[in-house]
């Protein structure tokens, strides 16, 4: 089935997630959809599979205009989507799951369904036991069940959202073989990913999204550098900041391990010195955020030790880190950083040392004025945080940091900000570094990582590189590492066996 998207727009509040995307996918192809997190891939695919409606634009299937009222409606018209987290019913048996979504009335014919399940599975070499419980299946097997189910329900377009996260190498090979076969049979496959090597290995063609826009398309064989450039944008080098002399160790990670339901990071050993800046690179969801949070005491590491200012702080809560002179600045300013309904004045008062029991309105007013002036915040003392623009929210967050910090943890220090604000914010941060504050941050902006870090760690598919001096890297090399190319040469560990990892979580 040929799929055509015409000028698709989607807004979430003030966020313009899809900006006029037009894309034609011929029948029988494996179409890659490449882009960073937040580029708009998932939104676009949710529109195509009927989960959400576009605010503007049209979908055409085999030359006919289509519109979907629901995912079930989209599936009736031939479009099925496999989500990143399988949307099945874990406490049920495989066969019941298989039948649950079918339009079969009150009493589904289970015998027919069993036959269909077995015969479709056999075609693709899947070994699914109809009577097993779904929660005993691995992520890969649950994916197989979902593929078989969608095919049985007549899907002619199959959308895969990051399907290779959390499955073993053998299951990945099986999946790729199945996808090639489905394409040969004339079905259309859309493969959403951020892994360059998978695009290279599997996709006939690829479309790249960045900040909600379709920035380019390419056909196999691919020019890797061009794909990296399309994903991350044109590279302008601002010039590296001058190095800051480093002092005594501030944060020491020793063989640190973190995990979530889909990946395990092990063996991170790193010492950050006073005045030093260390950046974490990688696609979102590669583990860098968990590592940063574990290092700050916000989540418990699953192994290894954390020392802060020479003291063993492993397993201690964030509050202890905070008291000892650390601050954690989250990426999501409205859900974790600021108090949306509180004014600038109230924020500033909260951030300061308490004096007495009663608030002093005049003092609060003048503190707020000082902060607004010193941090060039466009707002008044009585403006609530939610009414500020993203850049001004970030400035307010910086204004709230205590003066004598030893270590700042930061997620995406300048995400969503204009260049001028970004430069200004790093100016403020580097000023702190000159006074001995260390910065440990993650970012998806390659230039930011290269320009401001002393060393960079790259995360990919559950693995980490050793700390790489930033001046030995350039944007191309960093982009390739993030996409998994040439990773083994600089990896910190031997490759972990994905099958073993998966077994632990199944």
């Amino acid at each position: 089935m040929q799929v055509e998207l015409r000028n698709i727009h989607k807004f979430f509040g003030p966020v313009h997630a899809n900006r006029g995307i037009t894309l034609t996918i011929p029948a029988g192809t494996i179409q890659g959809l490449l882009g960073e997190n937040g580029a708009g891939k998932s939104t676009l695919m949710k529109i195509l599979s009927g989960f959400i409606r576009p605010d503007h634009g049209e979908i055409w299937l085999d030359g006919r205009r289509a519109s979907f009222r629901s995912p079930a409606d989209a599936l009736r018209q031939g479009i099925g989507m496999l989500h990143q987290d399988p949307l099945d019913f874990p406490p049920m048996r495989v066969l019941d799951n298989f039948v649950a979504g079918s339009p079969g009335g009150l009493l589904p014919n289970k015998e027919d369904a069993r036959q269909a399940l077995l015969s479709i599975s056999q075609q693709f070499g899947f070994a699914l036991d109809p009577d097993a419980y779904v929660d005993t299946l691995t992520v890969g097997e649950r994916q197989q069940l979902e593929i078989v189910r969608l095919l049985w329900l007549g899907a002619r377009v199959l959308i895969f959202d990051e399907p290779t996260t959390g499955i073993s190498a053998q299951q990945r090979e099986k999946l790729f073989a199945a996808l090639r076969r489905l394409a040969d049979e004339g079905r259309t496959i859309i493969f959403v990913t951020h892994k360059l090597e998978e695009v290279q290995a599997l996709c006939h063609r690829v479309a790249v999204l960045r900040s909600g826009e379709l920035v380019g398309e390419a056909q196999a064989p691919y020019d890797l550098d061009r794909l990296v450039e399309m994903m991350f944008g044109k590279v302008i080098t601002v010039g590296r900041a001058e190095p800051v002399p480093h002092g005594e160790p501030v944060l020491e990670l020793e063989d640190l391990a973190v995990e979530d339901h889909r990946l395990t990071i092990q063996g991170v050993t790193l010492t950050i010195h006073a005045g030093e800046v260390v950046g974490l690179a990688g696609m979102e969801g590669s583990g860098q955020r968990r590592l940063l949070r574990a290092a700050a005491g916000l989540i418990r590491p699953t192994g290894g030790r954390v020392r802060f200012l020479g003291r063993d702080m492993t397993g201690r809560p964030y509050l202890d880190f905070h008291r000892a002179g650390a601050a954690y600045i989250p990426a999501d300013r409205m859900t974790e950083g600021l108090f949306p309904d509180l004014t600038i004045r109230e924020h500033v008062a909260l951030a300061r040392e308490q004096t007495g029991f009663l608030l002093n309105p005049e003092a609060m007013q003048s503190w707020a004025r000082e902060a607004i002036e010193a941090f060039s915040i466009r707002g008044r003392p009585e403006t609530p945080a939610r009414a500020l623009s993203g850049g001004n929210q970030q400035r307010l967050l910086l204004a709230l940091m205590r003066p004598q910090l030893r270590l700042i943890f930061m997620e995406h220090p300048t995400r969503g900000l204009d260049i001028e604000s970004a430069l200004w914010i790093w100016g403020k941060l580097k000023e702190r570094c000159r006074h001995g504050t260390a910065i440990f941050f993650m970012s998806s902006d390659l230039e930011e990582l290269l320009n401001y870090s002393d060393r960079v760690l790259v995360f990919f598919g559950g693995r980490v590189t050793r700390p790489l001096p930033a001046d030995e890297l350039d944007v191309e090399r960093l982009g390739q590492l993030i996409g998994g190319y040439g990773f083994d040469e600089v990896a910190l560990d031997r490759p972990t066996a994905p099958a073993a990892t998966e077994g632990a979580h199944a």
Partner: protein
Amino acid sequence: MNEHMTWRETVLYRGGAVLLALVLTSLVIWVSSPQTPPWEVLGLVFRGAFSTPAQGGVSWSKIADVLVAWIPMLLAAAGLLVTFAAGLWNIGVEGQIVMGAVFTTWVLRALQDSSTPPALILTLAIAAGAVGGSLWALLVGLLRTYGGVNEIFGGLGLNFVATTIVLWLIFGPWKRPGIGSMSGTEPFPPELHLPTWGATRLSPVALAIGLGGMAVAYVLLKGTYFGLRLKAVGNNPRAARLMGMRPARYMLLAFGLGGALVGLAGAVQVTAVYYRLIPAISSGYGWLGLLVCMLVGYDPTWVPLVSLFFAAINIGSIQLPIVLSLDSSLAGVIQGTLVFSFLFTEGLRRTVLRRRLRASAAS
């Protein structure tokens, strides 16, 4: 994004809300009593708050009755403001009034035959009411912070438990000599009643407790570091944590403090209104306090005035069964539709605002 209302929007939405409430109430009146025009009924309710239909003119005893109803509502609303500031839905407010009344009764019963001076007994009893409400609320808080039970369910469940405890006390250990009855426990001797003003039912001490409780909540929330932190925790507990606060601790404090204010309402009902423990000791004032808070958007400034208005409706509707043979529960209809209408128009305003925002973003 301009979220402040212009005066025109204020008139449109707030005025619209009042109008909507009047229309809905009239509809209910029309259905239940088609022969009386709705405005006559509403007029009677409002006049009834200040005068008796038989005599006409301003009746001081009526006004005193309104204030008597105002006090527990004020205290319940004050306590709820504290928990709302911390972002908590204290649905257990009714149970906290009841447990406040139980603790007060307990102290009065324990000391009424001793030689302790009555003033001291009353002081201790009222303080015990605050403690009772506070402990009952803290139970909800502990269930939430350590047991993972949402405060709405915990509070709702404990309301039923509190009611059951009162019934058990009235028909069991605290029953009147002879046989227990729905009329409550044995009334306390007159020296253990809070003194009233002249021939009215209004006690100046109770009024002082009500206004004092409200003042405490107001100052706490508007003028202290503690109140500011409470607001911060309520607005965004995750940000509060990253700023070095302990959200769970502040939530517990909010429950403890809010519960104490609510418990005072129960204490006042025992020592100044019923002079004994009765099964319906809370008289629904907790729910009314909740409605008041929702109507004013949880801003302490307007709580005294709006709860006074609600109290007036309550007293005014007492006339209804006598004069028009309509049920006095019409008061609840007026109060409920008002809150509903305000919430509805507020939701409408936000939707319109969002639409306008999206339209301007798309163009």
